[in-house]
């Protein structure tokens, strides 16, 4: 079955620093992201995983190359058009969560929701369903981020990210700041969303998190160094886990 490409990036260039202290992250990187995939980008620290993900999502501009996101070359959009593009196409989950403090979880979600819909009740209904999906009880919806656990906050962050039914959900180390139990709960939400057909791109250096992905990309020396297709996540599938372990060992993990 031919997969539908949702993002196609060609000849991407990105470097940091100025003059004598320029650090090239990648100079000619090509990557395709497919609809319905749970793509995981792995690599060592400083390999440019997050930089690549933020370039693909229009959060950061590459120095060169093209990014075709669902038929739009997003490298040609100015920052405000990119913002409008993101609100319709992308959802973001961050390692540090970044819920708006002193704003309730529900209001955090509505703040994102009102960008694409004028019907506040419809947004609320959708938010309630999503809160239930990620196991956040109703008595927590009116709490602020400082009144709940990190795991709950991150799950609320996921609800905010998917409230506008984005084409692609981007996640940057979503379990990085969480303990094991909370991390697993968050990953379960990702798996559940993927199960429902949500395209996801996740950056992680955590094997447990990466194992949730259906397609693993390993970035090294400014290129996609290797790729491994694992298919749908099955917690008890030892063969799948072994394939993954073998792949990352080959990549030098």
């Amino acid at each position, binding site marked *: 079955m031919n997969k539908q490409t949702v993002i196609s990036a060609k000849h991407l260039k990105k470097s940091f620093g100025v003059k004598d202290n320029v650090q090239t992250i990648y100079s000619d990187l090509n990557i395709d992201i497919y609809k319905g995939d749970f793509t995981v980008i792995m690599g060592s620290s400083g390999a440019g995983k997050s930089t690549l993900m933020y370039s693909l999502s229009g959060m950061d501009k590459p120095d060169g190359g093209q990014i075709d996101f669902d038929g739009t070359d997003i490298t040609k959009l100015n*920052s405000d058009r990119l*913002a*409008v593009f993101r609100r319709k196409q992308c959802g973001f989950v961050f390692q540090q969560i970044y819920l708006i403090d*002193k*704003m309730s979880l529900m209001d955090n979600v*509505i703040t994102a929701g009102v960008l694409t819909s004028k019907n506040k009740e419809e947004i609320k209904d959708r938010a309630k369903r999503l809160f239930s999906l990620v196991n956040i009880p109703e008595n927590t919806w009116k709490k602020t981020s400082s009144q709940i656990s990190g795991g709950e906050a991150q799950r609320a962050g996921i609800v905010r990210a998917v409230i506008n039914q984005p084409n692609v959900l981007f996640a940057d180390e979503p379990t990085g700041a969480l303990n094991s139990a909370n991390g697993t709960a968050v990953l379960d939400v990702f798996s559940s969303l993927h199960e429902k057909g949500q395209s996801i791109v996740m950056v992680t250096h955590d094997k447990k998190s990466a194992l949730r992905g259906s397609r693993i990309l390993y970035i090294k020396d400014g290129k996609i160094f290797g790729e491994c297709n694992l298919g749908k996540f099955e917690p008890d599938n030892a063969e799948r886990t072994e394939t993954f372990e073998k792949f990352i060992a080959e990549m030098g993990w």
Partner: protein
Amino acid sequence: MNKTKALVLHNLKKTKGQYLSFALIICLTAFIMNIAIVLAFQTFDAYDSLFSELDTADINFLIPQFQDDSEIIAGIEKIDGITRAEKHGGVFVSTTVREFADSDFDMNIVFYNLDEARTLNQLEISEYLKEDENTVYIPMYMKELGGFTEGGSITYSIGDADYTYEIGGIVTEMQYGNYGTGLIGGYFPAAVYENFADEQRERSITEYSVRIDGSADLLQIKKDITKYLSDKKITVLNMNDKVSAKQTRTMVCTLLIIIFLALAAIILAVSIFLSSFRIRSAIVDELAQMGVLKAVGYTSKMIICSAVWPYVLTGLVSTALGAALSYTVLPDAAAILAIQSGFLYTPAFDITALLIVVTVPVAVIFLFAYISAMKIHKLEPIDAIRGISGKGKTGQNILLSVLSIGIMVLLSFAGTLLFNVSVKPDNFLNTLSEESPSVIFSVQKDKMSELKNLLWGDSRTKLVLEYAEVSVSYADGSLTAFVCEDFGKVTNDICYEGRSPKKENEIAVGNALADSYPIGSRIEITSSDKSEHYIVTGYIQSVNNGGRVCQLTKEGYEKIGGKTSTVNVYLHDTSTGEFIAEYEDNHSELVASSVNYEQLSENGRKMYAGIVSAVTAVLFMISVLMVLLVLYVIIHSMISRRRQEFGIYKAIGYTSRQLTMMTVSRFIPVVAGSAFCSAIAGIWYLPIINHAIFSRIGAIKNQFEVSIWVLLAFAVIFTVTAFLISVLLAAPIKKITVYSLLKD
């Protein structure tokens, strides 16, 4: 706006305390601004309205009754531009009003028959109590400033005789209702007037009231009238017109409006910097959140709106509230103005003023808030989330400097005023008045030399100077002339350009004549029926006569038939009261009457000191409020931002007191530095401000001393106040615990 509404409301709720403090400052700005603008709009309109209502003449002049004849009115009416003329009898006297503001006050008064029918210059009798053989009606100015009340008594000393009347009521009129015009009215019921006029037959006058065509040149018509009368050898005792009368009677209002608008501008400047500071702080403090908002699809414009709108909304509500609150004090403000203007009105709600008071500050707040928030445009979402960009300066030190400098300008102005009224009162009195002797003696006929010799021989006497204040006329009307035997000896040199006259053909003229008569030009002065040309040698200032004054030497005055009959006596440190009593008792053949000018000055000084002390106290309270509100915002922001840092300090053993001092010491040096620099700079800028303000009321030569010690004392008071307020506001540091750090 709909999409950002939630963010706007969230921002408002999140830091409501800071928006509240901002609202209070803006409310105060609008409060002061609305008072100034409503007074500016309505005082002048109320004046014009009352002027029309009472059918007040455009020009009024007095001539001695014995020179009047039936042809004059026809002659006057023939002058181009004059549409109507009317004449009435009156009695024009130079008198001393006893117990005017608890002192004796020399005044030129014209008494009229209250019951005589008038078309022009009608009277509005606001109180009407009684009418018998001993009743007088006085202008509102006499009531408000002089302290006379209905039912009380008033004594006029004319020559050797005292005339005491019961005050029957208060009259509002628009021609002679303020002594700044050099003349004030008095009104007798018909029977009383007839008796009085009989007694003062030699002082009877005819008053001509003239209405001119709306498009006619007032100045030209005054010249034509003066020429017509001069050709007929008729003396003009006094001439005034609607323009100069209005200027004189609304002088304090103008001054008050300028001061209020300047005050509002300073407070608005501080509040603008406050809003800019808050937005810059928010960008620094909430950088990651702004990045996230961009990530989820908010455009820069929307995020800027969410930062700016809370200030605009706060501004809209607080300016409207401030304007509304100002109506609670506006009637009192108008009543204070009535003391000087001599007419009372009740300020009404003014929609134009409200629109200005709301739109101007809100537009300025919007503009500066938007400029501060523009930085958000440059924030790349990923850089903001990673905290790479946007960690710029918040402008805290600029805000503190603006606050300190703004407040120090207010305090330096008020402090200098207070110093010159209370500690160095001569500076204040010399700026606002002409000559300030200890005693003024009116001399019995032909006894001037004898009295002067006696006074010079008295060891208590420092200086004896023939000095008189008389009325003369020139082409455009009447002038108050200061006549002196030697202007080189006067104690208050009121000449602000050129010099006082030395020779008999020289004259120094007031600031109102400066444009028309350059130094070196000639001016024709008339007194009685004699006219002479004098060379202008300089310009003098005068607050009380609208600048329509001149200085003539004694010999110069004698050339036009004048003769001085008063002498100024300047005493060494001795009891002025006893000195006067002794001369009145022992030398009544030489002294006709006397004025304890020292007491008069002291009463005036006390009155001004009271007003200035109140103004200083109000300015100080406004300053403390502004310091409190601005420091609240700064300290609150600082504590929120450095919460973790404070927790760490506490973990390693720092006490709350040490942390409070560390916090306060971060900005008190800026406050102190700015305050002291502003105080020192005051030496340069205060004379400019004082001149700008006081020249508006005719005091062009400002004699205030700007004491660096006073300015430094205020800088110390301001710094100490700011320090104490800071320590109080930094109290929440105590509540930061190591546990809360871990929890964060």
